[in-house]
């Protein structure tokens, strides 16, 4: 037992190291969750695509059991409209075996086979008919085709730009492929115009997507009390200014005040004429008096 402890510690440290190195390794994969492999039209040697770099081997030295990686290949097949499937390219990925037994695919590379003349004609026909170009991959990488093939289709007219631009998103779960999202690299117009590419070669972008963890539900244990009391406030509408709260009272009030002011303004004016009339009053009376006097006369 006493011997095992240092060994265990060592393993632990090694594990941490390996984890960090793994973290570093998978930085570009796990955090970005995707990797672009831009390949030309010609098939490249798949061996070149697998980086047999030293860190990997060193890691294997560090701990044999916790992680292991080997390369796997699976083929992409395509069909033109209703035609049968034929191989179109090869995906190469690194299979990583984790200490807990899980396996994941990383470092996806893709090499497209060039289009043969027959395929080119078939593709042209598809473009003219505005029909679907369909591709498929096996649903399990290790023992293809697994539960069946994963299909994906796109109207052929979406693909041609300068060359044939295609974009793959492969959703994986361990060594299983869930779905293959295939389409043009950019947007696809509708209605789709007939357009032939200048270069009859594929320009492929591949992205591999792994699972994304959901955020944990926020828990405020210490704020619970505050939240409970604050809930009432939360239910209410957000706080409003004095004006927005009481405008319906303020406007009539303003009207009344204005009314009162105008009245008050009018009052002195009216009083002035009234005063004038008061001062002038004797005159008409006098006039009247004179009139009456005149009438009496």
């Amino acid at each position, binding site marked *: 037992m006493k011997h095992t402890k240092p060994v265990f510690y060592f393993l632990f440290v090694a594990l941490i190291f390996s984890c960090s190195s793994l973290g570093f390794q998978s930085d570009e994969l796990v955090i970005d969750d995707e990797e672009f492999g831009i390949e030309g039209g010609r098939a490249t040697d798949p061996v070149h695509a697998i980086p047999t770099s030293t860190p990997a081997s060193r890691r294997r030295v560090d701990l044999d059991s916790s992680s292991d990686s080997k390369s796997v290949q699976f083929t992409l097949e395509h069909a033109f409209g*209703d035609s049968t499937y034929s191989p179109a390219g090869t995906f190469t990925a690194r299979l990583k075996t984790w200490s807990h037994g899980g396996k994941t695919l990383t470092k996806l590379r893709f090499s497209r086979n060039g289009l043969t003349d027959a395929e080119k004609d078939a593709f042209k026909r598809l473009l003219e008919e505005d029909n679907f170009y369909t591709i498929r991959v096996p649903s399990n990488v290790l023992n293809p085709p697994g539960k*069946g093939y994963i*299909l994906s*289709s796109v109207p052929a007219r979406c693909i041609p730009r300068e060359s044939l631009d295609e974009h793959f998103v492969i959703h994986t779960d*361990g060594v299983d492929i869930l779905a293959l999202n295939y389409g043009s690299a950019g947007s696809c117009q*509708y209605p789709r115009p007939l357009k032939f590419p200048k270069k009859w070669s594929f320009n492929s972008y591949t992205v591999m997507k792994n*699972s*994304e963890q959901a955020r944990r539900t926020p828990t405020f244990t210490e704020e619970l009390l505050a939240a409970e009391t604050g809930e009432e406030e*939360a239910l209410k509408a957000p706080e409003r200014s004095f004006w927005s709260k009481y405008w319906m009272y303020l406007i009539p009030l303003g009207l009344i005040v204005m009314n009162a002011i105008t009245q008050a303004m009018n009052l002195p004016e009216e009083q002035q004429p009234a005063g004038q009339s008061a001062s002038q009053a004797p005159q008409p009376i006098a006039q009247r008096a004179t009139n009456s006097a005149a009438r009496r006369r």
Partner: protein
Amino acid sequence: MAARFFLGFLILLLHSIISCGVYEDQVGLADWHQRYIGKTKHAVFHSHKTGRKRVVVSTEENVIASLDLRTGDIFWRHVLGENDPVNQVDISLGKYVITLSSEGSVLRAWNLPDGQLIWESVLQFSAPSRSLLHVPTKFGLERESVVFVFGGGWLHAISSIDGEKIWKKELYTEGLDIQQVFQQDDSDSLYAVGFLDSLQFVAYHISVKNGEVLEESKKSFASGFYGSMLLVSRDILVALDASRSSIVSIKFSRGSVSFHQTYISDIVPEVAGIVEIVPSKLSGLFTLKTDASLVLFRFNSIGELVVENTFSHPTILSDSISITEGHQVFAVMQHAETKVHIAVRFVNDLTSEALKETIELHPQRGNVQKVFINNYVKTDRSYGFRALLVMEDHSLLLVQQGKIVWSREDGLASVVDSTTSELPVEKDGVSVAKVEHSLFEWLKGHLLKLKETLMLATPDDIAAIQEMRLKSSEKTKMTRDHNGFRKLIIVLTKAGKVFALHTGDGRVVWSLLLRSLRISEGCECPSVLKLSQWQVPHHRAMVESPSVLVLAKCGPDFLQSGVFSIIDSYTGKLRSSQKLPHSLLQVIPLPFTDSTEQRLHLVIDSNFEAHLYPRTPDSIDIFLREISNIYWYAVDYIEGIMKGYSFNGKCKADMEDQYCFNSKELWSIIFPAHSEKLAIIATRKMNEVVHTQAKVIADQDVMYKYISKSLIFVATISPKAAGEIGSVTPEEAWLIAYLIDAVTGRILHRVIHQGAQGPVNAVVSENWVVYHYFNLRAHRYEMSVIEIYDQSRADNKDVLKLVLGKHNLTSPISLYSRPEVVVKSQSYFFTHSVKVMTVTTTAKGITSKQLLIGTIADQVLALDKRYLDPRRTASPTQSEKEEGIIPLTDTLPIIPQSYVTHSLQVEGIRGIVTIPAKLESTTLVFAYGVDLFFTRIAPSRTYDSLTEDFNYALLLITIVALVAAILVTWVLSEKKELRDRWK
């Protein structure tokens, strides 16, 4: 003075508009609630004692209920839930209702008068078996307080006083099927008889005292048995042999078993085809069901089998009941067109009839399926009989003295699908008298309301006001209203009956039992029932009536051909019905209508070929024009595969049929079987209206919602976590949520919730999805929201560009473009578990949304979508607050006032349907389960109309008073001026 009036009026107006929740006196104004029980399986009468006469029933909806024999009202009712089906029901000690449920593993006693649970006993269970309940009927003896239960391979004796287990005995061996548990002449012993591997007859003779097996007798029968046996008399059982060609009578007495085989063709030569023993208790008689008739047999005095009578179909026999010592009777129901002849006959002497009656039945009820009889003593001391009839449409009738005393539409407890229909447009030409009358009523009502407002009303007045509100003739009219509150809800039940319910008061306007789905017409179990709007006339709404389409098939088999029926929505008349020449897998209503406004439907058959309906040249023109843009998908829940299809030319099988199209597989998604199991798929409602794609957020920025009709939400859970909550550790459980575009098969978003377990409920609307699941780590239910925004339009923010038209907002979008979406999500704890979930829909989609949640307590809770906003933060900024963002909390609040069902329960809630009214603010809500509930809600309050309670009289009086005041002050001022002049 005028200003003060105005102010007062303004304040009054404000107060009348703001109203939240439902006040006590508003209950029943816009809502109605109907209670049902479902199709009756067993019925036990309790009418001997004085007091209220009642019948206790158990139903296929797992309800036990006590019904008033006089009115059919429910005294009490218990819904045992989906996983607790009632197997047997009986009355013990004259005061307890004993129910055996969950395949014989739970025994309960309920108090007969009020339905209180007296005791509950959970019984030992080792293997699924028949569940049998034997309640000794002899009165006044001690042993009467014991009930015997067989279930799960165990025989139990249980005290009916407190549910205590007196003894138990395991009677389980591999292949043993115990079929009857009975006592012979109330002796101290009990018999349990059954078949072993359908080859051997086994009888256990068991002591009642301690469960000891006194004797075990076995005897093999070379040709084997078919189905189940029936106890005919105290020591004779009958069964069919394996070839169903002969009747085997099994005579057993202490220790000895003897078989006697009689060929059916020997005694009834005309019988041909498949025969079956009808499981009934006729004490000495038994019946055999053949293709053509029902044959009644009896063992004569020397033990030979003789035919007593032959009844032609459809005939139903009841179990026998004893009226006096030694006199047993049973009922025979025979159909003749729409009439039913009821005859009650003596078991001993079939020729004499104790009762003979004929009743007229509504043709839409179908045939009688079950009958239970009960006797009573008439005023002249002779015996009278009442019969409880269970009809083909699952309704329940009580017949007494040749009349239907009451009827219950219990088919409405099993609604499978629903749709709505507008009512007819109101025709002109209303008589003047009517107008005057209603005007008078109107004024009277408003005067009363005015009195109430001014607090002058007496309690009588208040009662009158309440009555007037509830019985407003306005809401039950059979015509369309301005606000779109009055509609017909058309529901389809499991029995294949279509009902039209009025939204005003929930009454059945018409009902139609589809002939092609009736059991008597050879449709054993109607399934995949789908109700859809077929024709909604707009141009000719005055002359044409709308119609609905019912699609169904008989039997669960995929290869069964479907039935296609069109029903007039106003009258309930069957317009046309046809049997489809192909099978029925999926129905897709298309968003197109032909020139007669019939909706185009695609029916997908089991070969994935699509058939277009209606079969008119017009519809095919429309369809072919759009065929390149029509996609559909299919889901295989068992295999975990989703596949997308488009159409590709004519059918291969039938090139002649121009309405048949071949499908081409476009995409597939395969969920790995070891890590994911499909749990739920949710889609947007096809008729949902989105007001605007743009969402202006706090900092005056614009976000564009990703709005696509083809957006589907899929949730998968780990296969290990498919069981009950708590059956796995959090490490083994996860839930994966997907947002998938159904046209291209693209996964737009995929996210894993570790430690989450089903059951999953989800609702999709506009650009968001809300789903509910259990969080094993936090030991709580949780709700998550995902909102998805379109980034490809995000740069359309320049006002100048928008003004000059330099934007891509009007260009068509193709789903084949590479999606540029951003996703925002958040999770919140939620206290309740959820049965169903839906979202409110309004006419224009302007009103804010509420989630309607069917809770475990069978209530409907309205939860504002604002609480499920992923952009909630702990401390929102001032501008965010202005936008209406609520500060982040970890739990969603449950506000008691926001229960839509207020104090009511929609027992066994299975679905909530929301229907937009014409008024933008209002949504009609229809919830169904065993009960039905309807109400209307306004998620943002009724901002676009005055409430019904608005006091027009007060307004009128105010105006009159104002005018009067103006006149008076004018006259006064005139006078004053004159006076001033005279000074």
